[in-house]
């Protein structure tokens, strides 16, 4: 392996005359495309819509919680708000976001391929996503679901009067979108790597998506069949989880969490892959401990399947099973910690530049660490018994999902925006937005740790007076966070029209995707590249970054 200097192209180069965005025009050329890059943009549009719908529910929740009394909405409506917020954000934003947008766009490019293994399946999986989303939106518009995103039985199967079956169908359908994406990635990485691209020369973004795909393929089918059972029980009065018939509601919880715990790793592993790419680029340094980071991704995927019972410590589950799940939950923190150490060691004595993607990466590392450490508190059986179903849990998972996963997503969108759009985003506004998001996020969710510890339960629309100050802080933070998310929506759209043209490699990054023009041609590479060295082979020369 030689240390190769990869200087960025300093003059803004005119974008190539024909590329994937302008090669064909018209609605049909987008809706019937097989180009993984166009499909990624179709997903980008869809998940953005769902993100803001989920955000709207969050806004209504926080508005209600400004005052201790339940005075904005009725309790049944509030139940629907937190349910729909969870369902939309988890199934229609967090799970697809990075894999279906950035993974679809860049995995073929990172391995030197012209497309994924199954391009038509890729398009089908977007249509499946949209159809599932429409079912769910239909349910939302007609009155929503009030069971919590967790659909616990027997409330969901027998007693709820809301649109459980329609929503269940929507999620069931969308699950197949996830399964097909994971299948496509696994087959692609195994069979379509460029000559010379061995497994240990793959970018860590690919490793993390491979691990994510394993989870998608192994876990999603279980929640799919579980949702099927809930629907069948509700529609045909079959009793599988019904205690009146001798059924066990805890069986539902086992089946549900077998997927839904690994699902959180589906949501965060791709973000970790993004962070690996950003940290190496903006420290101009090779990743510290490449193999450790690669194997840590796989370890997280595997161990993540062994811990689901930590969501059920107070459910009536056997205490012996609880102890097993508790110990295993401690173990799964180890590979995550390895990654945090390795990113930090990468930055040590690196040449750091504080571009927007790097700001988001910093945010990820700090906030994910806080979220992860609080996860250790929750893995401790004795502590969890006290804080379960309180705002402590809500804060914990938002630190990981928003402070972690979404920050990684935003970092990735900004990092690869020049490649995707051929334009540079406005760096000043982008840094400002990142800061607003960081401040807004912490103001929203840190008080929730305190609230939970003091005993405020989750999923309640009214609360005792003494919790009001912290709730007001949280709502104030949420407003700031909302503005922070609106800013990129505005300036990224703006940049598509008015942004400066981006060179092929504005950040001076190594990586096959930067070897093509911005935006790339439809077939990605005119000639299949041959890989001869390790990834992240930065030199120590001073290089000026454009953009």
């Amino acid at each position, binding site marked *: 392996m030689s240390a190769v200097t990869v200087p960025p192209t300093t003059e803004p180069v005119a974008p190539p005359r024909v590329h994937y965005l302008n090669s064909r025009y018209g609605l049909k050329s987008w809706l019937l495309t097989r180009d993984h890059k166009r499909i990624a943009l179709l997903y980008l549009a869809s998940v953005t819509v769902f993100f803001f719908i989920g955000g709207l529910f969050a806004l209504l929740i926080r508005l209600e919680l400004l005052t201790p009394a339940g005075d904005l909405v009725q309790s049944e409506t509030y139940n629907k708000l937190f349910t729909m917020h969870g369902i939309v954000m988890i199934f229609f934003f967090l799970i697809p976001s990075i894999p279906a947008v950035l993974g679809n766009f860049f995995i073929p490019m990172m391995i030197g391929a012209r497309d994924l293994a199954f391009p038509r399946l890729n398009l089908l999986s977007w249509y499946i996503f949209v159809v599932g989303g429409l079912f769910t939106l239909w349910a939302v518009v007609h009155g929503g679901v009030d069971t919590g995103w967790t659909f616990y039985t027997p409330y969901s199967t027998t007693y709820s009067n809301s649109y459980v079956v329609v929503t269940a169908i929507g999620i069931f359908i969308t699950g197949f979108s996830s399964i097909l994406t994971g299948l496509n990635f696994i087959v692609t990485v*195994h069979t379509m790597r460029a000559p010379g691209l061995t497994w240990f020369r793959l970018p860590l973004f690919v490793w993390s998506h491979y691990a994510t795909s394993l989870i998608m393929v*192994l876990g999603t089918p279980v929640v799919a069949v579980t949702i099927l059972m809930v629907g069948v029980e509700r529609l045909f009065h079959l009793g599988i989880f019904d205690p009146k018939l001798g059924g066990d509601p805890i*069986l539902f919880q*086992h089946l549900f969490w077998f997927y839904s715990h690994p699902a959180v790793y589906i949501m965060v592993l791709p973000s970790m892959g993004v962070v690996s790419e950003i940290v190496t680029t903006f420290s101009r340094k090779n990743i510290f401990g490449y193999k450790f980071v690669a194997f840590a991704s796989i370890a997280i995927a595997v161990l993540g*399947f*062994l811990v689901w019972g930590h969501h059920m410590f107070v459910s009536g589950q*056997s205490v012996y*099973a609880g102890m097993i*799940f508790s110990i295993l939950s401690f173990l799964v923190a180890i590979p995550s910690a390895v990654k945090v150490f390795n990113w930090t060691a990468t930055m040590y004595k690196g040449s750091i530049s504080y571009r927007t993607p790097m700001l988001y990466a910093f945010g990820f590392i700090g906030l994910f660490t806080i979220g992860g450490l609080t996860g250790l508190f929750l893995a401790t059986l004795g502590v969890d018994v006290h804080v379960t179903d309180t705002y402590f849990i809500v804060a914990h998972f938002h630190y990981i999902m928003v402070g972690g996963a979404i920050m990684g997503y935003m970092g990735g969108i900004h990092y690869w925006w020049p490649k995707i759009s051929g334009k540079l985003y406005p760096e000043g506004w982008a840094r400002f937005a990142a800061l607003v998001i960081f401040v807004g996020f912490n103001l929203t969710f840190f008080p929730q740790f305190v609230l939970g510890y003091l005993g405020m339960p989750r999923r309640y629309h009214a609360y005792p007076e003494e919790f009001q100050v912290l709730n007001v802080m949280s709502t104030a933070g949420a407003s700031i966070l909302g503005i922070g998310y609106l800013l990129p929506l505005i300036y990224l759209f703006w940049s598509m029209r008015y942004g400066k043209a981006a060179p092929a490699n504005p950040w001076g990054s190594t990586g096959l995707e930067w070897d093509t023009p911005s935006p790339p041609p439809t077939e990605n590479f005119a000639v299949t590249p041959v890989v001869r060295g390790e990834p992240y082979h930065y030199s120590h020369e001073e290089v000026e970054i454009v953009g």
Partner: protein
Amino acid sequence: MAQHVVPRKVYFAVFTALIVLTATTTGVSFLDLGPWNTVVALGIAFLKATLVVLFFMHVRYSPRLTQITIAGGLFWLAILIALTLSDFMTRGWLPTLQKLGP
């Protein structure tokens, strides 16, 4: 999948074995073997499935990746069942907890 073409007589041999095993499993189910009834029934089912996988689905002649993939799927199912049973089968261990069922 391998270019290797499996000769028809292998298929017919496997087919015969599968029919014999089916007849056996039905017949044995009428004999009282106590708890072994379940073991025998599942054992025969696994044997039949293995024959189908190895010969009808050509796994005997397939690359290692295929075999690892199948093993992975089965192992993951085993995780689901084993850890869930670790709850249901230990519920009665503490005397104060109610057991589910009669």
